[in-house]
């Protein structure tokens, strides 16, 4: 009984389902019929009307690319400019046999295989109706030669484009950066920021450095031109025009001559130098050596140069001043000394007896001083002048890691300074919380000891070190480091020059600052670690040497520079300000694998200061080999 009901229900359900499905099928037919009648309406009844419209659809809006803003140094010397370059472009659709046409073209002007490769790549990514460049930077002779033979090359034409040029090349590459061709990723970003419209027609966009961080200022406003075109889209007549507005020019605080002096002072060494004006935070020199030629990137870098730059052991693309992180070594000690005084753990007269090492209570592990046998009686002043390690091992132990982290963090270690070029590294000022997060390990008392002399987990960029020294030289005033001094737009008669920003002011006892600063001045005088670099100056300068370890030396072993591979040798550091009593410049020198700060880094700083105060330009080095 039950079974028959179920069966009946089942067939009943199936019947209902089929009815509904039929209704759907009929609806599908009807709706497709509706679509088809719409096509009949559009394509047959109104076909002629729409054909006329399509024919008349010849009004195109062409973008007018604005001139990119120029970049100058503080003396008005040009660092980035535009020039008109002639580019040979091809519309692939209008060329019958592309390969043989290009072969023929190559008999008139030079087309390298690299040019062809780039052109083929562009062609794959674009449509056959777009005009694509095959050769850029044609010489006047080449332009003339092509013009003569132009009738032989339908679908090819010469166009004038503005190209970017960096006349100072390698000298400022790490500051100015470069522009590159806009790619799909850029387009995505532009769309998100609702900027796509303004980049219609633009070929380039800032990739690194000032060119990137000030992109929206440098680029300008794209104009538009409504034109009537012929059947293949070539403009015939202009109907209306909105002129483009050129980008703003930028004047940097950078002094190209000081920059030059710094690079020469480095000689053969790799490294970084940052010089800043302590009264406002303006960057005066910013060197990462070796640099590279920014011009290589403007039109897409070729394979060979890219490999040379990217695979070089010297890592020329690495911005060491901005992104290189190094243990600050002994340049960390002035801040430790100030912490000791400010937090009441040391007085200027308190002295230790240095046996040449320090051990934690109950431990046999020896934290060694750089000088075997030790320095004897050491007070605060002497500890900085001769850079005693034991003094700071003890101080670090007495302060504890939290005090060190909180006090020294105020000088900007472990965080970005906020400088106006992109890609700055954070550096690292360790704390127990950080270690837990990073390694899931507890902080050991031994970790604190090496932090005291700027080793251990400590990492800082040359920029951060300069920033911290600026605070010292300024008695606690922090200015944001920045490159741009002035922004000018001639079209809009607009000048902006309020780029100086005082970030904060540390509340430090003047008496404590004076003790530390007096010791730093003594560093460059007889008896100090930088006495040789400080000999016979007509101005006073204060500083601190430092050495940052590249490899660890085992317990009981000694570091002997001559026995260690050049690339594993210590980095030399020197951070300084001058004149000592009224600082006008603060600078940090880092010499990669340079050995000790006093012998390599400090002399470089001296040469740069000699140029800054006395105008003595170092001799260029003779390239040997």
């Amino acid at each position, binding site marked *: 009984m039950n079974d028959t009901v179920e069966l009946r229900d089942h067939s009943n359900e199936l019947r209902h389902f089929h009815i509904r499905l039929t209704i759907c099928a009929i609806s599908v037919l009807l709706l497709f019929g509706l679509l088809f009648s*719409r096509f009949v309406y559009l394509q047959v009844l109104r076909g002629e009307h729409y054909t006329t419209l399509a024919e008349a659809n010849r009004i195109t809006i062409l973008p007018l690319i604005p001139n990119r803003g120029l970049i100058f140094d503080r003396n008005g010397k040009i660092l980035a400019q535009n020039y008109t370059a002639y580019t040979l472009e091809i519309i692939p659709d209008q060329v019958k046999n592309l390969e043989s046409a290009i072969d023929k073209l190559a008999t008139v002007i030079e087309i390298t295989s690299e040019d062809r490769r780039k052109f083929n790549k562009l062609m794959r990514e674009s449509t056959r109706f777009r005009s694509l460049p095959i050769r850029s930077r044609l010489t006047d002779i080449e332009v003339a030669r092509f013009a003569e033979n132009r009738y032989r090359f339908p679908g090819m034409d010469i166009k004038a484009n503005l190209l970017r040029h960096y006349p100072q090349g390698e000298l400022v590459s790490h500051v100015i950066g470069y522009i590159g061709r806009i790619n799909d990723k850029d387009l995505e970003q532009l769309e998100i920021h609702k900027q796509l419209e303004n980049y219609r027609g633009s070929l380039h966009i800032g990739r690194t450095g000032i060119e990137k961080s000030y992109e929206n200022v440098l680029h300008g406003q794209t104009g538009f031109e409504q034109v009537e075109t012929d059947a293949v889209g070539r403009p015939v007549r202009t109907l209306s025009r909105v002129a483009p507005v050129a980008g703003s020019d930028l004047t940097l605080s950078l002094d190209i001559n000081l920059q030059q002096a710094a690079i020469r002072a480095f000689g053969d060494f790799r490294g970084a130098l940052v010089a800043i004006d302590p009264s406002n935070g303006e960057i005066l020199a910013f060197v990462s050596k070796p640099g590279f030629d920014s011009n290589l990137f403007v039109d897409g870098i070729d394979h060979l140069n890219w490999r040379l730059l990217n695979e070089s052991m010297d890592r020329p693309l690495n911005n060491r001043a901005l992104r290189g992180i190094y243990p600050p070594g002994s340049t960390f000690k002035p801040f430790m000394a100030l912490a000791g005084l400010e937090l009441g753990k040391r007085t200027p007269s308190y002295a230790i007896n240095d046996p040449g090492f320090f051990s934690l209570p109950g431990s046999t592990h020896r934290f060694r001083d750089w000088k075997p046998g030790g320095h004897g009686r050491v007070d605060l002043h002497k500890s900085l002048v001769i850079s005693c390690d034991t003094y700071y091992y003890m101080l670090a132990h007495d302060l504890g890691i939290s005090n060190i982290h909180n006090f020294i963090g105020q000088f900007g270690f472990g965080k970005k300074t906020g400088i106006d070029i992109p890609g700055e590294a954070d550096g690292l000022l360790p704390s127990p919380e950080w270690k837990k997060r990073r390694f899931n390990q507890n902080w050991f008392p031994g970790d604190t000891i090496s932090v005291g002399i700027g080793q251990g987990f400590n990492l800082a960029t040359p920029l951060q070190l300069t920033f911290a020294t600026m605070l010292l030289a300024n008695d606690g005033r922090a200015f944001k480091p920045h490159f741009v001094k002035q922004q000018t737009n001639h079209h809009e008669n607009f000048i902006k020059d309020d780029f100086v920003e005082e970030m904060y002011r540390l509340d430090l006892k003047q008496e404590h600052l004076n003790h530390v600063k007096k010791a730093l001045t003594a560093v460059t005088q007889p008896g100090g670690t930088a006495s040789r670099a400080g000999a016979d100056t007509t101005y006073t300068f204060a500083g601190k040497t430092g050495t940052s370890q590249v490899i660890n030396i085992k317990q009981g072993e000694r570091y002997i520079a001559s026995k260690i591979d050049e690339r594993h040798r210590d980095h030399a550091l020197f951070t300084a300000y001058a004149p000592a009593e009224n600082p006008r410049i603060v600078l940090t020198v880092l010499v990669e694998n340079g050995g000790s700060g006093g012998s390599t880094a400090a002399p470089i700083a001296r040469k740069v200061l000699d140029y800054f105060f006395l105008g003595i330009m170092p001799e260029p080095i003779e390239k040997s080999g």
Partner: protein
Amino acid sequence: MITLDVKKTWYYLTRYIDNFLLAGIFLLMLIGLIVLYSATGGNTTRVISQLLNMGIAFVIMWVVANVPLQKIMRLALPLYVLGIILLIAVALFGEIHNGARRWLNLGITRIQPSELLKIAVPLMMAWYFDKAQITLRWRNYVGAALILLLPVLLIARQPDLGTALLILASGLYVLFLAGLSWRIIVGLIVIAAISLPLFWNFGMHDYQRKRVMTMLDPSQDALGAGYHTIQSSIAIGSGGISGKGWQKGTQSQLDFLPEPSTDFIFSVFSEEFGLIGNGLLLLLYMIIIGRCLIIAAKAPTRFTRLVAGSITLTFFTYVFVNIGMVSGILPVVGIPLPLISYGGTSMVTILLGFGILMSIHTHPKLVRT
């Protein structure tokens, strides 16, 4: 010695594939590639990348077609629950693009969970009906409606009205095919007609209102939102009866059409192949839909009937909405033309649906007792 038995291998590869349906799909894909080549102005990279999309989608279809129905049925609930969890996650931590919160960043990849629901919702509703008693009561319909409304509202909130409406449609098809009484259907239509003005005023974003207004009168905003519709109509209309010929459509080739390789690819086809091409394309779609309806009609259980019917009608909805949009009888919503538009996600979703249909049709029929 082992000899590779070609015949046997071939049998195992194709035993769960419906050849008739497959032929239709391949034909449409081929047309899609030909139009894409023209729409991108001869860009082979795009065509190759689309071939890759098709390959991936095809493999997924094959795998799904080989899965027995009981397994697919068992997946209905987990898939649905997972989809809802992901939608809630999107509402809480989703990434915002163009003012809508649709994407979920999983660290390695970003996903758009609403895509999953396109399949999961009809599966879940059909499963729910299948679990009910032989005779469906009104509370079963209420339950199914709730299953449907939860994801639809979550997606509409993102806001992604287009996808929400599509999923709503796929669910309404299930309700309709499950035998929802005519009185209720008429009642719902009346309620919808009354609430439409309210929805217009309070339930829509400005840009959505603008789209509808533009559809009603494109010339109102000829250089803004109406531009797409006008240019697309010009493309179709100027194609005439026989079309301008492959790669010869001036509207498409001179960049007058928006997104000629995705949402507006039909305009390109229409301009270049004319009324004759359009008629043949519609016929091809109709044949595929007809075949799918037959599969639904022959399906053995309530679950399979409802799933097959809903997938088929949703496929039709895609085709109708896309073509209706580009020919100016529906508002511009971002819906691709199935099997023809460029893009991997929609290709996978569509072929996944066909995979389920094939599985329904080719696996041994189990009569429900």
